[in-house]
């Protein structure tokens, strides 16, 4: 049973560019959350998608946007990249309902130069 799959695993972009990261949730999961993890820090919540809608958003600027597709997969888009956007971007999926835990993917390491 495949867990959460993220692509690409590594990415190098130039400041000002745009990037799209992709996530396929674990089988049976319908909710996808995105987190940003800077080096030496805990993950920070970006937003969550359910039924193709953004259900909750963390304290991130509008440069960060997302999408969820009918098959529950998701994309994270970041526009006008800044050096400070360099981080590990994690996707986590879960199933709707109480007391279901989140399964994390291995992440995409984004480096902005």
């Amino acid at each position: 049973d495949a867990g959460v799959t993220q692509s690409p695993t590594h990415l190098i972009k130039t400041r000002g560019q745009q990037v799209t990261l992709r996530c396929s949730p674990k089988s049976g999961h319908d909710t996808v959350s995105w987190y940003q993890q800077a080096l030496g820090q805990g993950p920070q919540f970006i937003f969550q998608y359910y039924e193709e809608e953004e259900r909750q958003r963390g304290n991130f600027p509008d440069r960060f946007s997302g999408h969820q597709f009918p098959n529950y997969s998701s994309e994270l888009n970041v526009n006008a990249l800044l050096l400070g956007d360099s981080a590990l971007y994690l996707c986590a999926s879960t199933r709707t309902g109480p007391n279901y835990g989140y399964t994390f993917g291995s992440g995409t390491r984004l480096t902005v130069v």
Partner: protein
Amino acid sequence: EDQVTQSPEALRLQEGESSSLNCSYTVSGLRGLFWYRQDPGKGPEFLFTLYSAGEEKEKERLKATLTKKESFLHITAPKPEDSATYLCAVRTLNTGNQFYFGTGTSLTVIP
């Protein structure tokens, strides 16, 4: 404002030397406290969920406990393969569906 603090930031243990990691929290309406293990360059791996004070969960050499103010992750007779960063996260009435993570404890077990 919800706060989660993990201590120590880093811990070095000899193989077999038991110890505890701490996660203290100040939140409004705890809806769950979660422990994750994270290896370098990888995503967090779920370990335990605790919901109410007095609750305990065990898995192999790990045992998690919860009080009204903090959670402990006890590691008994650790092995080198237990080396990782251990993250604590909470869900609260304020955070809704999101997890609010601490900064983690980096554990190194020396053979």
